[in-house]
Every structure is written in structure tokens, then in C-alpha cells.
């Protein structure tokens, strides 16, 4: 009567500290340049080696420019961080997928793509969107830098076991709807703190029918509901996706792994601390209107009126609308858009580029819109080329940039100017997230594409 979470978690318990946390074994640690340097400093201060260097994979992604990657990074501070990661990898004997190499990309795109993230694993990274890797059926979650240091030093972490939540989404997704819309819908239902303290298992017909790319998008956004992570039990879609990937097991090892992976289900009589049910028919293409991802509406709906908002939250609600330049009760269809961003660990995969291209194919980008299309990895870049999507996009007036985190958090040059509206396929619409004063509207690649064509908030179903 175990949940899938119990099965994987229990398998990895080294010990339970009396009236304290669990010492949990970690199979895979990913490091990027922003949240790791202080952890490596910590090892040096304590004179410790990396305990299991073969289980650690590093790659810079946050600071990477999305043009001229063959040249040194212009921003000297960002460059130093990227160089520091390389130096640390050399000193501690770790694998690095360097900037501007075919292996590089956003960690949460590269990990699954290379078959480094596998079912039944425990996976951590100093990045909240590590929840993405849950799509392959792994316990994956974001950690702080002190915790990165713990894993480097001991391949373990101290954690309290989260509560379990199962979210079932029944029915079938209609045309024009994506995993992103499902996730944005869940966030507005649960709020950004509704799943805090929980680990989510996504289930139901809609989730079963999602591709791996769709599941990666859904799991990516678990953290935006406050959850530590979210995953999908592995099935044929998972196995099919992983088979033949660079680091996936082969031959006998594959058969052995498959035998184990096929046991990775929540038992029929498993009891969850919380179980929620949603219907696909209640979901339409979604957009956000506020400054946290839970502040979302169906694209044809209006922003709530003040009296629809709980009293303790009203100041924050109004502060948020003031920042966005919106009014309570306003419908956003037709509102002007200045920027469109396709990319990030949320929607920077090949399927997202296919979706975007399907909308803009044979049409033209609106003249007033600046569009940044940023693949999540060089592998995605290569697929875009192989499938001829670059040609379709170029004909419609779109240029493809080089891979990286880019405008999702604007640590590189890709910053949305103050006051401008950006329809973004990324994960957070916090104040200043895409640049000081930038106004972010989160949406799916289909909605982003529709907005790029018209220069206004547009329902892709009406094109």
C-alpha cells in the first residue's frame, strides 16, 4: 500500500535522525554556475574532496549569452562565474558540459535529453526547477547551496519527508491546449503555496497521454505551487523516450533497469495525504495577469474584481496590478504585447518549437513585437534544424538564438525593458524577473505564438 514516492524515498534512506530529518542518498547532483561556487568554496575551507564525482554533472546555463557564444562573455562578472565552474570541475574531477559545446544547454533540458535522469532516482540541483526531472519518474527537487555542499561532501542530504499529494486530471486535452495550460490552471487553483510541504504525483488520463516533453513542462512547474517536486509514474512513454539516450543503460543493464522501473507505481490501495481531481474540460488556454504564477486566468476570462479577493490578500493584489498596469475586472484579450519569449526549462524543448512553428507557419510576425526564441539546448537547436523548423520560423520573421536560460531570469543580456509587456513561456512572472520593471505574462508556446503574430493578447484558437 505504498505510494510511488514512498517506494523511491524508502529505498534511498541511509538513516533517520532521531526527532530530526532523514539522511537521504542522492543518485544524481547537477550543478550550474550560479548556486555552486560557494559550495565548492565550502569544500576547500573544510579540506574535503567530492565524495562521488561520477554522480555529479555540471554545466553553465544561467549567464550564457544567446548570441556569439564562441566569443568570451562580455559581462565580466558573469564570465567569472562561468569560469569558476570550469575551474571547480577541473579541481574536483567533475564532468562539465561547457558553454558553446554540443553537450551544453539548460540543465533541466539536458539531464533528461541525455538519459542522465532516470526512473527511480533521487536527483537534486541548486535550482528550484529541478522538479522538471520528475517527469521520468524520479524524486527530483531543488536545494540551496549549503545542501549542494552536503551532497558534494557526502552524496547525501538531510531532509524531512514531505507529505504526499496526488493530482488527477481526467479527460482529454482539446486542441489549442498544452501541458503549460494544465500547469497554469493548477497553479491558479492551488495558489503558489497550496502544495507547500507536499510532493506531487500527477496522474489521470490527461497526464498519461502527455508526451515526455509535456510531462517535463508539467513537473517543472510543481515548485510554482509550492511543492518540493512533482513526478509522473514511468510508463511506455517514458521507456520509449529514454531508450538509446547517451547515458541510459544498455543491453543487460537496460533489461535489469526495466525490471525495476516497471515496479514504480503507486499501489492501488496507496493512501495520499491529499488527493485532488480536476477535469480537462475546465481548462482553456491560460495567461497570468499578476506578479506570481498563481495569479492566472483563462484567456477569455477577466481579472478578478477586488471583492473576489480575500481581504488579507487585497493589498498584495492591488500592488501587483499596479505593477502590471492592469485594472481589477479587466479582460486582457487584445491588450498590446511588446515582447515574446519562447524558451526556458519550462518550454524550451523541441515540441515547444514545433507548437510555436505550427501557429506561425505561413504567417508573419507583428512588426512591433520583439521575439526571442531560445532553444533549451544545442541538441534542441540541432533538432530544429533537422526538422526544418528554422526555415518555417525564418519565413515568418523569427530568428533563433543560441541556447541558455536567457530571458527567463535575465541574468544575461536578454532583459525586457521597464514597463514593457512580455508574453513568456517561462515559469515566473515575479516583479523584475525578466529585467527591472519588466511586465511578464506567462503562457504556453501556442498562446505566445498567437500573440507574436498579432502584437496583442490573442487566443490561438481564434486564428
Amino acid at each position, binding site marked *: 500500500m505504498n505510494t510511488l514516492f514512498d517506494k523511491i524515498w524508502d529505498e534511498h534512506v*541511509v538513516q533517520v*535522525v*532521531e*526527532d*530530526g*530529518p532523514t539522511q537521504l*542518498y542522492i543518485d544524481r547532483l547537477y550543478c550550474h554556475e*550560479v*548556486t555552486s*561556487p*560557494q559550495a565548492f*568554496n*565550502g569544500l576547500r575551507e573544510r579540506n*574535503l574532496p567530492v*565524495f562521488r564525482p561520477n554522480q555529479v554533472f555540471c554545466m553553465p546555463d544561467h*549567464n550564457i549569452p544567446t548570441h556569439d557564444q564562441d566569443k568570451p562573455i562580455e559581462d565580466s*562578472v*558573469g564570465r*567569472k*562565474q562561468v569560469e*569558476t565552474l570550469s575551474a571547480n570541475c577541473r579541481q574536483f574531477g567533475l564532468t562539465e558540459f561547457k558553454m558553446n559545446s554540443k553537450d551544453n544547454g539548460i540543465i533541466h533540458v539536458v539531464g533528461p535529453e541525455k538519459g542522465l535522469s532516470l526512473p527511480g532516482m533521487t536527483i537534486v540541483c*541548486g*535550482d*528550484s526547477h529541478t522538479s522538471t526531472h520528475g517527469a521520468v519518474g524520479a524524486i527530483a527537487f*531543488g*536545494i*540551496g*547551496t*549549503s*545542501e549542494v555542499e*552536503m551532497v558534494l*561532501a*557526502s*552524496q*547525501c542530504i*538531510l531532509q*524531512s519527508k*514531505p507529505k504526499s499529494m496526488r493530482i488527477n486530471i481526467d479527460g482529454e486535452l482539446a486542441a489549442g491546449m498544452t501541458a503549460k495550460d494544465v500547469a497554469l490552471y493548477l497553479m491558479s487553483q492551488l495558489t*503558489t*503555496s497550496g502544495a*507547500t*510541504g507536499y510532493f506531487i504525483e500527477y496522474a489521470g488520463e490527461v497526464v498519461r497521454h502527455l508526451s515526455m516533453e509535456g510531462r517535463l513542462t508539467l513537473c517543472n512547474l510543481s*515548485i510554482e505551487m*509550492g511543492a*518540493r517536486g512533482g513526478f509522473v509514474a514511468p510508463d511506455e512513454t517514458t521507456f520509449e523516450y529514454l531508450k538509446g539516450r547517451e547515458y541510459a543503460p544498455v543491453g543487460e543493464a537496460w533489461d535489469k533497469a526495466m525490471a525495476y522501473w516497471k515496479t514504480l507505481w503507486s499501489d492501488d490501495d496507496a493512501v495520499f495525504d491529499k488527493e485532488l481531481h480536476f477535469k480537462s474540460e475546465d481548462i482553456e488556454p491560460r495567461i497570468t495577469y499578476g506578479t*506570481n504564477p498563481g495569479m492566472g486566468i483563462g484567456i477569455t476570462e477577466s481579472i478578478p474584481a477586488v471583492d473576489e479577493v480575500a481581504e*488579507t*490578500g487585497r*493589498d*498584495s493584489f492591488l*500592488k501587483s496590478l499596479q505593477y502590471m498596469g492592469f485594472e481589477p475586472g479587466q479582460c486582457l484579450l487584445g491588450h498590446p504585447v511588446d515582447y515574446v519569449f519562447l524558451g526556458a526549462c519550462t518550454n524550451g524543448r523541441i515540441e515547444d518549437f514545433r507548437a510555436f512553428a505550427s501557429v506561425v507557419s505561413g504567417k508573419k510576425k507583428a512588426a512591433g513585437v520583439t521575439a526571442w526564441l531560445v532553444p533549451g539546448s544545442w541538441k534542441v537547436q540541432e533538432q530544429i534544424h533537422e526538422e526544418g523548423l528554422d526555415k518555417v520560423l525564418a519565413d515568418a520573421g523569427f530568428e533563433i538564438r543560441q541556447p541558455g536560460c536567457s530571458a527567463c*531570469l*535575465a*541574468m544575461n543580456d536578454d532583459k525586457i525593458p521597464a514597463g514593457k509587456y512580455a508574453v513568456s513561456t517561462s515559469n*515566473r512572472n*515575479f*516583479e*523584475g*524577473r525578466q529585467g*527591472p520593471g519588466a511586465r511578464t505574462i506567462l503562457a504556453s508556446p501556442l498562446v505566445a505564438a498567437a500573440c507574436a503574430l498579432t502584437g496583442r493578447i490573442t487566443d490561438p484558437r481564434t486564428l
Partner: protein
Amino acid sequence: MKQKFDIIVSTCVPLPFENIDTDQIIPARFLKATDKKGMGDNLFRDWRYDADGKPNKSFVMNDPSYSGVILVAGKNFGSGSSREHAAWAIAGAGFRVVVSSFFADIHKNNELNNFVLPVVVTEPFLQKLFESIENDHQTQVKVDLPNQTITNLATGESEHFEINSYKKHCLMNGLDDVDFLVENKEKVVAWEKRRS
């Protein structure tokens, strides 16, 4: 960063907003350091300073009538990113305690790992505390870790708060998790043998 924790009595800095996310605590453009120094200068950067870098007079940290090592914030503090820079910024600006009715998971752990104590109180206690501070900016709060109590000294109202005894021991003795894990390496090796 390691410092021992006992009883703290202090005035407070209030931020009565819900869902204060880690991008507000420290914006991404200040995450480029390779050490932990100076983060406190950029705590709440875009609320604290205007676009030209001048202090924003209406922000609470620029109002000299507020002071102290206790930050009091609205529900769901620290949501968003896992960046420990947020905890380094809070610690770097001199705060020892953050009081809220709800914390985001990762950020809460990050505070604890930097010897900043997150104290979860009930929503009524929090609202009353905001009220006390608004009425008198010199309102003091007592945070007693050994007894796990927090007291609004303006009203005398007191609440018990939760912390597991392992982490309490760490805070009171200035120990961190890496120390513990390195001491327990044999258990990790035994676990690896068992699995293979």
C-alpha cells in the same frame, strides 16, 4: 555564518505583504558573486532603491524609526527560487529571525542552514504583531529558541513554534549539516554496498 542561537529580544522591521518571493528578496542580477559577501547590501534591492540607486524613502528599511534583527513578513515568505543568496542577503543585512505565518520550503531550509531562524506563527498573531509595530515602531519581540516561544512584548501575547530537535541542537550549538554528514560517511558506504 555559523553563530550560536539562544534568546533574542529586538525591535522589528515589518513587511506586511503576502507572497514575497526570492526575486524580491534579491533580484537575479545580484546572483553573480562567487562568494557570500555583500549580499545584504542588495536585500530587497528593487524596493529599497530606485532605478538610479537612490534609497526609496517610503521603504521600511530606509525609515530610521524601524530597526532590529527581526524581520516580520506576510504569508508565504520566500516563494520561488532556491537561491540561497536570499538567505545570505537576509543574514548579511543583520537579521537573525524571520517571522511569518507561512514559509516556502526551500527558502526555510536555506535560512536554517545560515543560522537565521524562521518562526512560523498563526495568522492572527502575525496580524496583531503588524498592528503593534504600526502603532509603535519600537515594539519589541522576544524569540526564545530553547523554549520555542515567541512573545509580542507590546501585548504580552505568546505562541509556541515548531522546530525539530536536531535543527534546534544545531542552531544552539553553531553546528551545520555538513559536519554531521561527513561524520556519518561510513553509513553511506554501507548503504551503497547494500544496494549494489
